[in-house]
């Protein structure tokens, strides 16, 4: 059974064909890597998967249901947990408040009954807090519980963001460059943690990642995007040796125009603050 399947996803921004006919699949409990040079459309496909973009053609299926028409919050509630390239957290709030907000879809009381102070809402607020603490402890972030998000280091923010994504109670975790801002040592540790999280939370994971050793170590399968198209796919060790991948990564330096296109794209997204 596949958790996620995109079929022929294409999207165009003005003159830029950001994605063309991208089909990828994440099987249950798989860790799938998504690699490619800057401007290849990796974040764009994430935005199509999570509903922030509506592709002009193609389908997104999640747990064998077509979710192509659903808004982002519904997809989140269905079990897609996502992190952003440039950190998607409530920056004015504390780590705990972010964890509580992220549990929005799983709060068992209604918005109005919470406002009116129903006893059930007060009781479940305690449960939400305990769940937050449990997840923070697992990720060794317990000491940051009451710290405001603003002011934390970039690497720490990336980890806090994974914690909030877990708090949404996902079946599929979509991670956008989880190791950025981390040193090689921390990135290695992150690899261990991802493998543990997959086991503990029964997750499937799809991640955009530049750190090749991490990809090779944890991913079961890898897709390579280049200029909005799938270049190749396969097991990490195969992909690593693929001549076109080597060319795309090492052979030709990404020209200025490509970086510019990526910037334009992110600007239009407005998703990466």
């Amino acid at each position, binding site marked *: 059974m596949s958790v996620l399947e995109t079929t022929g996803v294409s999207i165009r921004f003005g003159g830029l064909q950001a994605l063309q006919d991208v089909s990828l699949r994440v099987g249950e409990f798989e860790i799938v890597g998504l690699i490619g040079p800057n401007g290849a459309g990796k974040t764009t496909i994430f935005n199509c998967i999570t509903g922030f973009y509506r592709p002009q053609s193609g389908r997104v299926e999640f747990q064998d249901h077509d979710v192509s028409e659903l808004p982002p919050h519904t997809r989140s509630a269905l079990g897609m947990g996502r992190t952003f390239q440039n950190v*998607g957290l409530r920056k004015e709030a504390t780590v705990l408040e972010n964890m509580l907000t992220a549990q929005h879809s799983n709060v068992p009381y209604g918005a109005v009954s919470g406002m009116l102070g129903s006893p059930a809402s007060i009781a479940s607020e*305690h449960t939400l807090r305990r769940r937050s603490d449990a997840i923070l402890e697992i990720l060794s972030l317990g000491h940051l519980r009451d710290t405001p998000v603003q002011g934390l280091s970039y690497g720490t923010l990336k980890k806090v963001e994974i914690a909030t994504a877990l708090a949404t109670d996902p079946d599929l975790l979509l991670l956008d460059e989880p190791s950025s801002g981390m040193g090689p040592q921390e990135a290695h540790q992150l690899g261990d943690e991802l493998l543990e999280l997959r086991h503990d939370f029964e997750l499937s994971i799809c991640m955009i990642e530049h750190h090749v050793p991490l990809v090779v170590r944890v991913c079961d399968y890898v897709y390579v995007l280049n200029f909005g198209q799938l270049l190749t796919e396969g097991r990490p060790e195969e992909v690593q040796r693929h001549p076109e991948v080597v060319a795309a990564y090492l052979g030709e330096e990404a020209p200025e125009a490509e970086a510019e296109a990526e910037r334009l794209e992110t600007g239009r997204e407005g998703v990466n603050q």
Partner: protein
Amino acid sequence: MAIDLEPAIAGDVFPEEHPRVAPTALGWLGRAAFVVVVGAVSLYYVLHFEPAHSDVLATGVIVGIGALSLNVLVGYSGQISLGHQAFIGIGAFTSAYVISQSHQSFYAGLAAGAVVGIAQAVLLGLVALRVRGLYFALVTLVWGFVGENSIFRLESFTGGGAGQDAPRPGGFTTDRAYLGLCAIVLAVILLIDWRLVATKAGRAMQALRESPQVAANYGVNVRAYTLLAFAVAGFYAGVAGALFGSRRLNVVAEDFTFAQIALPYLIVAIVGGLRRRGGIVVFALLFVLAGDWLPELAKNLGVTYIQERAGLFIQAFTGVLAVLTLIFQPDGLGTVTAPIGRWLKGEPFRRGGGEGAEGVDVRP
């Protein structure tokens, strides 16, 4: 479909909630003494002075509720309203109409004011989903003037120049008793506001303010919670309007102008401190009391120039205060009231706003 956490984390591994530093018995006694002293001083003020002071305080309480309404929009959800004279006025006229034209009780009027307040706010919220930022601010400004110059001039609804009578309910006809009624309503609004921020809806609204994308990613329905924020603000405003009307006993259109309602209420919310409900209520009272004291003070000092223009001076002064607050102390008066509030809840006394500290506590 959604995997439960419980199987992964065995029940006994579930950590206890973080321990709090509980105050000693003496500490609690000190806190109780503080509440008693503040309560006694307030009660003394109300009972000892002329009943006119009760009327002024009732105005302060009503301004407080109106400013809390703006706080929901500006403070929590990151929206804006520059047309609150319409929000408050519609509540006042609806309530007065229900009481004196439909011959219902004051409480029916209050409820009707609240419902119509919600309805008009949600209508504006629907616009907010399509028009954003500066342009939406302009829309609210227009809505305020539509209320001021069109709706409040409908003679069948507002009674024209003579206004619409809005008698007080039995048992609350004196100024002192009416102040008591206003205070009870304020207490209820404060409780709702507290639970709002401490639960799902408040968190969702605040996430919207910080980033709609992050909110959606957390599973928050951006449209629904934008509308809910307007509904809550409209509810507070409708209630404030109904109280406003019966305080004056007669609702006239001249009371609901941009300069008398929308602007001062917004300033009270900002100087009191956005997201600082304690600061907002305290500053609302100070704001109204200052308007009452200044002419007397000027008279005693023999400064007739100020005495004659007290209202103007108060407005100019609070305007400057709002600007200074925004620049130097974004938490407003909440910088002072928030630490006291936390201390009363049993936390050690720490200075500073402690962003979100109010929202975290769940203890009733």
